[in-house]
Protein backbone atom coordinates (compact mmCIF):
# COMPACT_ATOMS: atom_id res chain seq x y z
CA UNK A 1 0.00 0.00 0.00
CA UNK A 2 1.68 3.20 -1.10
CA UNK A 3 1.03 6.70 0.14
CA UNK A 4 0.18 9.29 -2.52
CA UNK A 5 -0.10 13.07 -2.38
CA UNK A 6 -3.02 14.29 -4.49
CA UNK A 7 -3.20 18.02 -5.24
CA UNK A 8 -6.29 19.60 -6.82
CA UNK A 9 -6.13 23.27 -7.79
CA UNK A 10 -8.28 25.58 -9.85
CA UNK A 11 -11.62 27.31 -10.27
CA UNK A 12 -14.12 26.42 -7.58
CA UNK A 13 -17.42 24.71 -8.31
CA UNK A 14 -19.72 22.64 -6.13
CA UNK A 15 -18.77 18.95 -5.98
CA UNK A 16 -14.98 18.97 -6.35
CA UNK A 17 -14.40 17.37 -2.95
CA UNK A 18 -17.16 14.84 -3.51
CA UNK A 19 -15.93 13.91 -7.00
CA UNK A 20 -12.31 13.56 -5.91
CA UNK A 21 -12.96 11.52 -2.79
CA UNK A 22 -15.54 9.28 -4.50
CA UNK A 23 -13.01 8.39 -7.20
CA UNK A 24 -10.40 7.62 -4.55
CA UNK A 25 -12.87 5.52 -2.55
CA UNK A 26 -13.61 3.41 -5.63
CA UNK A 27 -9.92 2.51 -5.70
CA UNK A 28 -10.05 1.51 -2.03
CA UNK A 29 -8.02 4.56 -1.07
CA UNK A 30 -7.93 5.72 2.54
CA UNK A 31 -7.62 9.47 3.14
CA UNK A 32 -5.00 9.78 5.87
CA UNK A 33 -4.63 13.56 5.96
CA UNK A 34 -6.26 16.30 3.97
CA UNK A 35 -6.64 20.04 3.83
CA UNK A 36 -8.72 22.25 1.59
CA UNK A 37 -9.35 25.93 1.27
CA UNK A 38 -10.99 28.46 -0.99
CA UNK A 39 -9.21 31.73 -1.76
CA UNK A 40 -11.44 34.15 -3.65
CA UNK A 41 -12.91 31.42 -5.82
CA UNK A 42 -9.64 29.49 -6.26
CA UNK A 43 -9.93 26.00 -4.89
CA UNK A 44 -6.93 24.22 -3.36
CA UNK A 45 -6.87 20.76 -1.83
CA UNK A 46 -4.07 18.47 -0.74
CA UNK A 47 -4.78 14.87 0.24
CA UNK A 48 -2.57 12.06 1.47
CA UNK A 49 -4.23 8.85 0.36
CA UNK A 50 -3.04 5.32 1.04
CA UNK A 51 -3.99 2.88 -1.67
CA UNK A 52 -2.77 -0.27 -3.33
CA UNK A 53 -3.76 1.12 -6.73
CA UNK A 54 -0.57 3.07 -7.47
CA UNK A 55 -0.09 6.55 -8.84
CA UNK A 56 -0.89 5.86 -12.53
CA UNK A 57 -4.26 4.27 -11.65
CA UNK A 58 -5.14 7.17 -9.34
CA UNK A 59 -4.21 9.65 -12.08
CA UNK A 60 -6.53 7.83 -14.49
CA UNK A 61 -9.35 7.75 -11.94
CA UNK A 62 -9.07 11.52 -11.42
CA UNK A 63 -8.64 12.44 -15.11
CA UNK A 64 -12.28 13.49 -15.39
CA UNK A 65 -11.75 16.28 -12.86
CA UNK A 66 -9.35 18.15 -15.11
CA UNK A 67 -11.15 17.35 -18.36
CA UNK A 68 -12.62 20.84 -18.82
CA UNK A 69 -9.27 22.53 -18.13
CA UNK A 70 -10.50 24.43 -15.05
CA UNK A 71 -8.79 22.17 -12.50
CA UNK A 72 -5.31 20.71 -12.38
CA UNK A 73 -4.67 17.44 -10.57
CA UNK A 74 -1.27 16.17 -9.51
CA UNK A 75 -0.58 12.73 -8.04
CA UNK A 76 2.78 11.68 -6.65
CA UNK A 77 4.30 9.10 -4.34
CA UNK A 78 5.22 10.22 -0.84
CA UNK A 79 7.83 8.11 0.94
CA UNK A 80 6.69 7.61 4.57
CA UNK A 81 10.18 8.68 5.58
CA UNK A 82 9.37 12.28 4.57
CA UNK A 83 6.42 12.37 6.94
CA UNK A 84 8.62 11.50 9.89
CA UNK A 85 11.26 14.03 8.87
CA UNK A 86 8.61 16.75 8.53
CA UNK A 87 7.40 16.31 12.09
CA UNK A 88 9.58 19.03 13.57
CA UNK A 89 10.88 18.76 17.08
CA UNK A 90 10.58 21.85 19.25
CA UNK A 91 7.99 24.12 20.75
CA UNK A 92 4.94 25.50 18.93
CA UNK A 93 4.18 29.23 18.74
CA UNK A 94 1.62 31.43 17.00
CA UNK A 95 3.00 34.32 14.97
CA UNK A 96 0.52 37.15 14.22
CA UNK A 97 1.39 40.04 11.93
CA UNK A 98 -0.92 42.81 10.76
CA UNK A 99 -0.51 46.17 9.13
CA UNK A 100 -0.62 48.13 5.91
CA UNK A 101 -0.17 45.94 2.85
CA UNK A 102 3.20 46.04 1.09
CA UNK A 103 5.35 43.46 -0.68
CA UNK A 104 7.77 41.44 1.44
CA UNK A 105 5.95 41.08 4.77
CA UNK A 106 5.71 37.27 4.71
CA UNK A 107 9.24 36.82 3.35
CA UNK A 108 10.86 39.11 5.89
CA UNK A 109 9.11 37.72 8.98
CA UNK A 110 9.27 34.04 8.05
CA UNK A 111 12.94 34.77 7.26
CA UNK A 112 13.45 35.73 10.91
CA UNK A 113 11.79 32.45 11.95
CA UNK A 114 14.02 30.49 9.57
CA UNK A 115 17.07 32.35 10.91
CA UNK A 116 16.20 30.98 14.36
CA UNK A 117 16.01 27.43 12.85
CA UNK A 118 12.23 27.65 13.25
CA UNK A 119 9.84 25.79 10.97
CA UNK A 120 6.54 27.20 9.67
CA UNK A 121 3.98 24.41 10.08
CA UNK A 122 0.81 26.29 9.11
CA UNK A 123 0.22 29.69 7.61
CA UNK A 124 -2.70 31.85 6.53
CA UNK A 125 -2.56 35.32 5.05
CA UNK A 126 -5.46 37.59 4.21
CA UNK A 127 -5.66 40.90 2.42
CA UNK A 128 -8.67 42.91 3.55
CA UNK A 129 -8.76 46.36 2.00
CA UNK A 130 -5.41 47.92 2.97
CA UNK A 131 -5.00 45.54 5.88
CA UNK A 132 -2.64 42.61 5.47
CA UNK A 133 -2.82 39.86 8.09
CA UNK A 134 -0.49 36.90 8.55
CA UNK A 135 -1.13 34.19 11.14
CA UNK A 136 1.35 31.32 11.23
CA UNK A 137 2.08 28.41 13.50
CA UNK A 138 5.81 27.93 13.88
CA UNK A 139 7.94 25.45 15.75
CA UNK A 140 11.08 26.78 17.37
CA UNK A 141 13.92 24.55 18.57
CA UNK A 142 13.81 24.03 22.33
CA UNK A 143 17.24 25.62 22.79
CA UNK A 144 16.33 28.91 21.05
CA UNK A 145 16.10 32.09 23.12
CA UNK A 146 12.49 33.05 22.35
CA UNK A 147 12.92 36.60 23.62
CA UNK A 148 15.71 37.12 21.10
CA UNK A 149 13.45 35.82 18.32
CA UNK A 150 10.64 38.14 19.48
CA UNK A 151 13.00 41.08 19.51
CA UNK A 152 14.28 40.24 16.00
CA UNK A 153 10.67 39.93 14.78
CA UNK A 154 9.80 43.31 16.31
CA UNK A 155 12.70 45.09 14.67
CA UNK A 156 11.85 43.56 11.27
CA UNK A 157 8.18 44.48 11.80
CA UNK A 158 9.17 48.05 12.69
CA UNK A 159 11.09 48.33 9.41
CA UNK A 160 7.98 47.12 7.56
CA UNK A 161 5.62 49.33 9.58
CA UNK A 162 3.54 46.37 10.79
CA UNK A 163 2.70 44.88 14.19
CA UNK A 164 3.91 41.45 15.25
CA UNK A 165 3.35 39.09 18.16
CA UNK A 166 4.81 35.65 18.88
CA UNK A 167 3.24 33.68 21.68
CA UNK A 168 3.16 30.03 22.73
CA UNK A 169 0.47 27.97 21.02
CA UNK A 170 -1.91 26.95 23.77
CA UNK A 171 -3.12 23.40 23.95
CA UNK A 172 -6.01 22.59 26.23
CA UNK A 173 -5.57 19.21 27.87
CA UNK A 174 -9.06 18.03 28.70
Amino acid at each position, binding site marked *: MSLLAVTVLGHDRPGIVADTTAALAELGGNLEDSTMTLLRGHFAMLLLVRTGAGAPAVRDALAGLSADGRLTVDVRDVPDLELHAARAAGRPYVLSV*HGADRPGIVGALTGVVAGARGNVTDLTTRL*SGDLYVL*VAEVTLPADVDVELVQSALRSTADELGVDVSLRPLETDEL
Partner: protein
Amino acid sequence: MSEASAGWRLPALPPGAVRDVVRAPGRVLAEPGTDVDPADPEVVQLAADLLATQAVSPGCVGLAAQQVGVAWRVFSVDVSGHPKTRTCHGAFVLCNAVVLEGSRWERGREGCLSVPDLTGDVKRARRLVVRGLLPVTGEVVTVTTDAFEAVALQHEIDHTDGALFLDRVAGAHALHPRQNYR
Protein backbone atom coordinates in the same frame (compact mmCIF):
# COMPACT_ATOMS: atom_id res chain seq x y z
CA MET B 1 -30.37 38.04 30.51
CA SER B 2 -30.22 39.68 33.92
CA GLU B 3 -29.74 43.34 34.74
CA ALA B 4 -26.81 43.46 37.13
CA SER B 5 -27.28 45.32 40.37
CA ALA B 6 -23.88 46.94 40.20
CA GLY B 7 -24.38 49.60 42.85
CA TRP B 8 -23.26 52.27 40.41
CA ARG B 9 -24.73 54.14 37.47
CA LEU B 10 -23.11 55.89 34.56
CA PRO B 11 -23.23 59.64 35.33
CA ALA B 12 -25.19 61.83 32.91
CA LEU B 13 -23.13 62.68 29.84
CA PRO B 14 -23.48 65.58 27.39
CA PRO B 15 -25.01 64.85 23.96
CA GLY B 16 -22.62 62.66 21.98
CA ALA B 17 -21.48 63.15 18.41
CA VAL B 18 -20.96 60.30 15.97
CA ARG B 19 -17.27 60.04 15.07
CA ASP B 20 -15.58 58.26 12.16
CA VAL B 21 -14.38 54.75 12.98
CA VAL B 22 -10.73 54.01 12.20
CA ARG B 23 -10.09 50.79 10.30
CA ALA B 24 -6.97 48.66 10.47
CA PRO B 25 -4.20 49.23 9.45
CA GLY B 26 -4.77 52.67 11.01
CA ARG B 27 -1.69 53.12 13.18
CA VAL B 28 -3.64 54.56 16.14
CA LEU B 29 -5.16 51.10 16.63
CA ALA B 30 -1.69 49.83 17.57
CA GLU B 31 -0.99 52.63 20.06
CA PRO B 32 -1.32 51.74 23.75
CA GLY B 33 -3.61 54.34 25.33
CA THR B 34 -2.52 56.78 28.00
CA ASP B 35 -4.39 56.95 31.30
CA VAL B 36 -6.90 59.80 31.45
CA ASP B 37 -8.48 62.13 34.00
CA PRO B 38 -12.12 60.98 33.91
CA ALA B 39 -13.34 64.47 34.90
CA ASP B 40 -11.51 66.18 32.02
CA PRO B 41 -14.23 67.70 29.77
CA GLU B 42 -12.52 66.22 26.68
CA VAL B 43 -12.69 62.75 28.23
CA VAL B 44 -16.34 63.25 29.18
CA GLN B 45 -17.13 64.33 25.62
CA LEU B 46 -15.22 61.34 24.22
CA ALA B 47 -17.26 59.05 26.49
CA ALA B 48 -20.49 60.51 25.11
CA ASP B 49 -19.19 60.27 21.54
CA LEU B 50 -18.18 56.62 21.95
CA LEU B 51 -21.69 55.71 23.09
CA ALA B 52 -23.25 57.77 20.29
CA THR B 53 -20.99 56.18 17.65
CA GLN B 54 -21.59 52.70 19.03
CA ALA B 55 -25.33 53.25 18.97
CA VAL B 56 -25.40 53.99 15.22
CA SER B 57 -23.00 51.17 14.27
CA PRO B 58 -24.93 47.98 13.48
CA GLY B 59 -23.98 45.04 15.68
CA CYS B 60 -21.47 47.11 17.66
CA VAL B 61 -21.34 46.11 21.34
CA GLY B 62 -18.25 48.10 22.31
CA LEU B 63 -16.01 50.85 21.07
CA ALA B 64 -12.60 51.99 22.26
CA ALA B 65 -11.04 55.44 21.99
CA GLN B 66 -8.41 54.11 19.54
CA GLN B 67 -11.25 53.21 17.18
CA VAL B 68 -12.21 56.87 16.88
CA GLY B 69 -8.57 57.93 16.55
CA VAL B 70 -7.66 58.73 20.16
CA ALA B 71 -4.96 56.74 22.00
CA TRP B 72 -6.55 57.02 25.45
CA ARG B 73 -7.62 54.33 27.87
CA VAL B 74 -11.37 54.85 27.46
CA PHE B 75 -14.02 52.54 26.00
CA SER B 76 -17.77 52.04 25.87
CA VAL B 77 -19.68 48.78 26.10
CA ASP B 78 -23.35 47.93 25.65
CA VAL B 79 -24.32 44.30 25.20
CA SER B 80 -28.01 44.89 26.00
CA GLY B 81 -30.26 42.60 24.01
CA HIS B 82 -27.49 40.47 22.52
CA PRO B 83 -28.50 36.80 22.51
CA LYS B 84 -25.20 35.66 24.10
CA THR B 85 -25.53 38.15 26.98
CA ARG B 86 -26.22 36.86 30.48
CA THR B 87 -25.17 39.47 33.03
CA CYS B 88 -25.62 42.99 31.62
CA HIS B 89 -24.64 46.39 33.02
CA GLY B 90 -26.36 48.31 30.21
CA ALA B 91 -24.53 51.04 28.31
CA PHE B 92 -21.48 52.36 30.14
CA VAL B 93 -18.03 53.84 29.71
CA LEU B 94 -14.90 53.01 31.69
CA CYS B 95 -11.62 54.90 31.91
CA ASN B 96 -8.21 53.37 32.71
CA ALA B 97 -9.78 49.91 33.05
CA VAL B 98 -7.79 46.82 33.96
CA VAL B 99 -8.68 43.15 34.25
CA LEU B 100 -8.41 41.97 37.86
CA GLU B 101 -9.50 38.36 37.42
CA GLY B 102 -10.50 36.08 34.58
CA SER B 103 -11.60 32.46 34.60
CA ARG B 104 -13.62 29.90 32.59
CA TRP B 105 -11.63 30.42 29.42
CA GLU B 106 -13.43 29.50 26.23
CA ARG B 107 -12.76 30.00 22.57
CA GLY B 108 -15.22 32.00 20.50
CA ARG B 109 -15.32 33.72 17.11
CA GLU B 110 -14.84 37.49 17.25
CA GLY B 111 -15.18 40.34 14.83
CA CYS B 112 -14.36 44.03 15.13
CA LEU B 113 -15.75 47.21 13.60
CA SER B 114 -12.16 48.21 12.78
CA VAL B 115 -11.44 44.90 10.99
CA PRO B 116 -14.70 44.56 9.09
CA ASP B 117 -13.91 41.68 6.74
CA LEU B 118 -12.22 39.20 9.06
CA THR B 119 -13.14 37.22 12.14
CA GLY B 120 -10.98 35.09 14.40
CA ASP B 121 -11.22 32.40 17.06
CA VAL B 122 -10.02 33.89 20.35
CA LYS B 123 -9.80 32.45 23.83
CA ARG B 124 -11.38 34.74 26.43
CA ALA B 125 -12.43 34.45 30.06
CA ARG B 126 -16.19 33.96 30.53
CA ARG B 127 -15.99 35.05 34.17
CA LEU B 128 -14.36 38.44 34.60
CA VAL B 129 -13.67 41.13 37.15
CA VAL B 130 -12.65 44.54 35.77
CA ARG B 131 -11.83 47.73 37.62
CA GLY B 132 -12.08 51.17 36.05
CA LEU B 133 -13.17 54.76 36.61
CA LEU B 134 -16.50 56.25 35.55
CA PRO B 135 -16.31 59.39 33.44
CA VAL B 136 -17.41 62.69 35.06
CA THR B 137 -17.17 61.56 38.72
CA GLY B 138 -14.08 59.39 38.53
CA GLU B 139 -15.79 56.89 40.80
CA VAL B 140 -13.79 53.65 40.97
CA VAL B 141 -16.05 50.75 40.00
CA THR B 142 -15.55 47.02 39.94
CA VAL B 143 -17.50 45.23 37.23
CA THR B 144 -18.09 41.54 37.83
CA THR B 145 -19.63 39.90 34.81
CA ASP B 146 -19.75 36.82 32.61
CA ALA B 147 -20.48 35.46 29.13
CA PHE B 148 -20.74 37.99 26.31
CA GLU B 149 -20.22 41.11 28.42
CA ALA B 150 -16.98 39.58 29.75
CA VAL B 151 -15.77 38.95 26.19
CA ALA B 152 -16.70 42.49 25.10
CA LEU B 153 -14.80 44.03 28.03
CA GLN B 154 -11.65 42.03 27.25
CA HIS B 155 -11.86 42.99 23.56
CA GLU B 156 -12.19 46.70 24.43
CA ILE B 157 -9.45 46.65 27.09
CA ASP B 158 -7.17 45.06 24.46
CA HIS B 159 -7.96 48.01 22.16
CA THR B 160 -6.95 50.45 24.89
CA ASP B 161 -3.66 48.52 25.13
CA GLY B 162 -3.14 48.89 21.36
CA ALA B 163 -3.98 45.26 20.56
CA LEU B 164 -6.51 43.80 18.13
CA PHE B 165 -8.18 40.39 18.22
CA LEU B 166 -5.73 39.57 15.40
CA ASP B 167 -2.99 39.51 18.08
CA ARG B 168 -4.85 36.78 19.95
CA VAL B 169 -6.17 34.43 17.27
CA ALA B 170 -5.63 30.83 18.28
CA GLY B 171 -3.73 29.65 15.20
CA ALA B 172 -3.31 29.74 11.44
CA HIS B 173 -6.73 28.15 10.92
CA ALA B 174 -8.39 30.51 13.39
CA LEU B 175 -8.60 33.48 11.01
CA HIS B 176 -11.67 33.62 8.79
CA PRO B 177 -13.19 35.85 6.12
CA ARG B 178 -16.39 37.33 7.54
CA GLN B 179 -19.51 35.73 6.13
CA ASN B 180 -21.81 38.41 4.81
CA TYR B 181 -25.39 37.36 4.34
CA ARG B 182 -27.25 39.98 2.35
